[in-house]
């Protein structure tokens, strides 16, 4: 399937967008999961703090109870040391626990219950110790046996254990969630990476496909170009071969025509020479009025024969002219051509200067482009070609307007160049565009002397150089003759051999 450049742009853009989206998802997920990890971590810290505070509080309570029991048992102040120690710490522990519990749902109720129970227990402890110090040990024991402190303590244990268990559960939950987050991050990254790899792969594949197509198209194009150049070269060679054949044919034909023509002309002269004494004789001799035969003979010798010989002579002279014209053209093809470097602008300017006098008489101007290239070709042929074209332009100028001749060049494929000789002369009717290049054919009003050889001659010369000539023209407006030449004639000559 061929990929157009717009498809390529759209496909690549879509793939890039997909890749960007995948990347954004990964980054977003990472940020979010990072945040969640932070939360979980804070949660874990809080739970651990709460757990530690609860255990500290419980230990302090137990220490206080242990000190009270020891004192009640021994009545010795020494045993009261843990109790005093605990009483000093208890308040700060209780404060910390209350603070921590405040941030928990339902924590206020629990901390209130703990505070109440702790107050009851501490009251009981204080009371028994006070009674014991006052020497009323029985009353103290009685108070202990009343189980108030015992119950409060047991309530406290229960409450504190609940808080610890709650903290443990929160710890476990947070760790589990942390694991989930890590796993989610892992999968998100993995899937995102896969998506990005797919996108990059897809883009690369599309680009490779497209590049391959471009390379293929380029190859096809260069093949086409080469074929085109080959065809131009082939066609040029064909044209030149045909031209050469026509010239050889013309050469042979004209030579074969010449031989009998020499006889016709020769014997006509002989005949003329023979008639002369007969005529002289006939003119001198008297002819009797009734001698019909003699007067017929006289008429034939003095009028009919000289007239017939005269027509034969004029016709053979005309034929001779035509044959010479054909010979001239065929000789052009046989003249060896020599490639040399020619600056076309200089050469054409020189050709223009050569007819400056005639052009000036018509108020005319010849404009030669100054950017014409230098080519390798036969100078004599080019001189004749452009000299002929310029002569024609002057010869067939339109008298109603000043003559304008413009010579310009254009580069063509196959290392060729076209040179246009454009005039504003009387122009050539469309029917005659091909005919003007034929031998002995002329176009339009036959107001100027000429044999109809010029353009046929020009075409032969151009084709000899591996080129061709065409005309575009509008009657009454002007004509443009386009001479197409090989920039390097040697290549063409090489292809001919």
């Amino acid at each position, binding site marked *: 399937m061929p990929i157009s450049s717009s498809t390529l742009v759209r496909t690549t853009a879509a793939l890039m967008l997909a890749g960007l989206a995948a990347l954004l998802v990964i980054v977003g997920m990472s940020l979010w999961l990072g945040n969640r990890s932070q939360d979980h971590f804070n949660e874990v810290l809080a739970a651990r703090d709460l757990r530690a505070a609860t255990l500290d509080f419980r230990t302090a309570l137990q220490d206080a109870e242990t000190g009270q029991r020891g004192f009640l048992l021994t009545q010795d102040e020494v045993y009261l040391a843990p109790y005093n120690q605990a009483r000093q710490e208890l308040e700060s522990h209780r404060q910390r626990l209350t603070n921590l519990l405040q941030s928990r749902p339902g924590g206020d109720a629990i901390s209130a219950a703990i505070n109440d129970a702790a107050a009851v227990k501490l009251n009981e402890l204080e009371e028994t110790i006070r009674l014991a110090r006052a020497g009323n040990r029985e009353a103290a024991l009685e108070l202990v046996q009343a189980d108030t402190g015992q119950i409060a303590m047991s309530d406290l244990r229960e409450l504190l254990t609940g808080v610890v268990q709650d903290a443990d559960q929160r710890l476990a939950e947070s760790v589990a969630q942390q694991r989930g987050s890590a796993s989610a991050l892992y999968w998100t990254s993995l899937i995102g990476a896969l998506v990005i790899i797919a996108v990059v792969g897809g883009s690369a594949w599309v680009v490779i496909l497209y590049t391959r197509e471009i390379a293929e198209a380029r190859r096809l194009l260069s093949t086409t170009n080469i074929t085109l150049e080959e065809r131009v070269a082939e066609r040029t060679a064909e044209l030149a071969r045909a031209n050469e054949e026509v010239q050889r044919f013309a050469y042979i034909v004209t030579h074969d025509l010449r031989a009998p023509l*020499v006889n016709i*002309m*020769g014997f006509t*002269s002989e005949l003329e020479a023979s008639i002369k004494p007969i005529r002289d004789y006939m003119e001198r001799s008297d002819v009797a009025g009734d001698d019909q035969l003699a007067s017929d003979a006289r008429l034939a010798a003095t009028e009919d024969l000289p007239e017939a010989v005269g027509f034969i002579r004029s016709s053979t002279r005309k034929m001779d002219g035509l044959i010479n014209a054909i010979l001239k053209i065929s000789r052009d093809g046989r003249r060896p051509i020599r490639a040399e470097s020619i600056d076309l602008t200089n050469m054409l300017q020189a050709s223009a200067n050569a007819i400056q006098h005639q052009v000036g008489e018509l108020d005319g101007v010849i404009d030669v482009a100054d950017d014409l290239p230098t080519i390798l070709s036969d100078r004599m042929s080019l001189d004749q070609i452009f000299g002929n074209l310029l002569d024609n332009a002057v010869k067939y100028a339109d008298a109603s307007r000043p003559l304008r001749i413009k010579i310009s060049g254009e580069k063509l494929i196959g290392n060729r160049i076209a040179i246009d000789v454009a005039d504003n002369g009387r122009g050539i009717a469309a029917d005659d565009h091909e005919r003007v290049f034929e031998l002995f054919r002329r176009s339009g009003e036959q107001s100027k002397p000429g044999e109809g050889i010029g353009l046929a001659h020009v075409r032969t010369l151009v084709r000899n150089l591996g080129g061709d000539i065409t005309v575009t023209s509008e009657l009454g407006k002007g004509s443009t003759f386009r001479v197409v030449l090989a920039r390097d004639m040697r290549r063409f000559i090489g292809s001919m051999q």
Partner: protein
Amino acid sequence: MSSEAKPVTIVMIEDDEGHARLIEKNIRRAGVSNEIIPFTDGTSALAHLFGSDGSGDVSASRHLLILLDLNLPDMSGVSILEKVKANPNTKRAPVVVLTTTDDEREIQRCYDLGANVYITKPVNYEGFANAIRQLGLFFSVMQIPESA
């Protein structure tokens, strides 16, 4: 033309009888009265020049001047020229190539092969007649060696 021992014979090889006749007429007008033997094809001309055995011995003691056209029906005048100049019995005979061809290469080739004069036939009769007459005058003063 020198005619001490044996008179010079002009061998004219020209396929066009009209041309042959016009050439003969104009040579005669120049005052040349030597025998002219016309041939209209190469084969009979070669038979005359080299004899039936082709050795050329028949021409050993002849004084020959050859007028040669290049366009012949049975062979090229060039090959006749080649044979004449290659044979020891005929190689000294002057050969005048008189033809319609004005091709530069052809002219060079003829001189390379030993042609003595090359003349292109002018098409118009005045020129033609004039050229032949001048050729005749030339004949009347030139020395022709014995062939061998």
